[in-house]
């Protein structure tokens, strides 16, 4: 254990750099996933006939093992010259995040009590305004819970993406295994675990911050 600490101190610069790279990848993927998943989640509450098919498709995506998905994206994306590196990694992360984000958005909006929406209608709100001012604010805690699941999962998958040259903390694990350099392996595993636990805690905090005080929409959807 002492050796691991030594390693971390001696390579502090590189640790920060890789942690930052890792976080950056996950962040970019989350932004992409939100801008794709939340609108889709809202759309399928309006068009119920699509809901089942979309959710099932997202579920199938989630079932594909991550390293296999990287593998299948590789020949596909090499057609445009991005078979390795950050592009396939971020694309995979966006795809994996779809199930928790779409499902939670869908369920959250469905669970908004109809009488509140009716009250909005009674106040003369348009459909658009009802969505922006009533449905989305009430749904946000559950949506954030979905984001939390997606973020934690993405940190794990981003670690694997070191094997397709995307960088991030997986690099320590990858190089450590290749060189049988135990301190490096443990340092990488430790850092990526700490990052995941930290992000999980931060998202939990965010979740409780965005929950309106008067309304207790509990975390009905776990991971």
């Amino acid at each position: 254990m002492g050796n691991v600490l030594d390693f971390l101190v001696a390579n502090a610069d590189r640790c920060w750099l890789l942690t930052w790279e890792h976080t950056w990848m996950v962040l970019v993927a989350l932004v992409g996933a939100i801008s794709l998943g939340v609108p889709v989640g809202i759309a399928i509450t309006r068009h119920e006939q699509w809901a089942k098919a979309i959710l099932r498709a997202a579920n199938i995506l989630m079932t594909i093992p991550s390293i296999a998905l990287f593998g299948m994206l590789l020949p596909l994306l090499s057609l445009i010259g991005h078979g390795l590196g950050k592009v396939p990694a971020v694309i995979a992360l966006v795809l994996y995040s779809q199930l928790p984000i779409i499902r939670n958005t869908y369920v959250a909006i469905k669970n908004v009590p109809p009488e509140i929406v009716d009250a909005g209608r009674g106040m003369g709100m348009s459909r658009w305004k009802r969505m922006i001012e009533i449905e989305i604010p009430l749904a946000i805690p559950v949506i954030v819970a979905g984001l939390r699941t997606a973020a934690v999962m993405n940190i794990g998958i981003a670690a694997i993406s070191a094997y397709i040259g995307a960088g991030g903390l997986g690099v320590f694990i990858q190089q450590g295994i290749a060189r049988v350099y135990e301190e490096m392996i443990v340092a990488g595993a430790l850092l990526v675990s700490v990052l995941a636990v930290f992000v999980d805690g931060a998202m939990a905090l965010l979740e409780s911050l965005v929950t309106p005080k008067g309304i207790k929409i509990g975390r009905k959807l776990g991971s």
Partner: protein
Amino acid sequence: MNRLLKKTYRFALAIVLLGAGVAIERTGLIAYLSDPYEARYTVRLMEQHLRLVAVSMLMATALGLAVGVVFTRPAFKRYSGIVMYVVGLGQTIPSLAVIALAMSVLGIGFKPAVFALFVYCVLPIARNTLAGITAVPPWIIDAAKGMGMSDRRILLEVELPNAMQVILAGFRIAVVINIGTAALAFLIGAGGLGEHIFTGIQLMRADKLLAGAVPTTLLALVADSLCGLLGLLLIPKGLRLREETV
């Protein structure tokens, strides 16, 4: 509208299948797998993969169920919150980190890989067993008590069947994660289909890579739907009907 939807859906499915077929042919996957030596090798890797999954799942299911049952008994119930918290924390740890740590502690080969997969898959099963049994409505248990059932019979005939849906959901998550993580077991020398994938990436050979990636994906999808079938077997009829009407 609905018929149009169905037709578009079928059309899209046909196009996707056709596209996949063309892609498989173009990348040389078919040629690769028709080579008798490579085909046998792939089958062997798949056997290795399945053995990893089967052994670790067996152990994980046994321990996960046991943990879930023990920490819902009255004597240990007060610890269930802590266990749930620890399990939740454990689940946030990335799979690659678990594999890497197993290697640094136990070395390389089949055993460390099975150990890593086992540790990683106990968590969802234990969590869901705990959550499922806790969520059984107390009045059902009261009714069972009123009928004079022993604690053991209440567990086996009332609590577990009622919690089965949730437990199976956990089992399903564990199997799918396990199959995906077993692909990483190659990195610590346990073989499996990951061997094709990682070697294929290193050599930039799409055919070899896909010969690992496609079977792994199919395994995961098949296991996922088999778990759905398992639900039909294990979940009592009455509970299933209620589930559908709600």
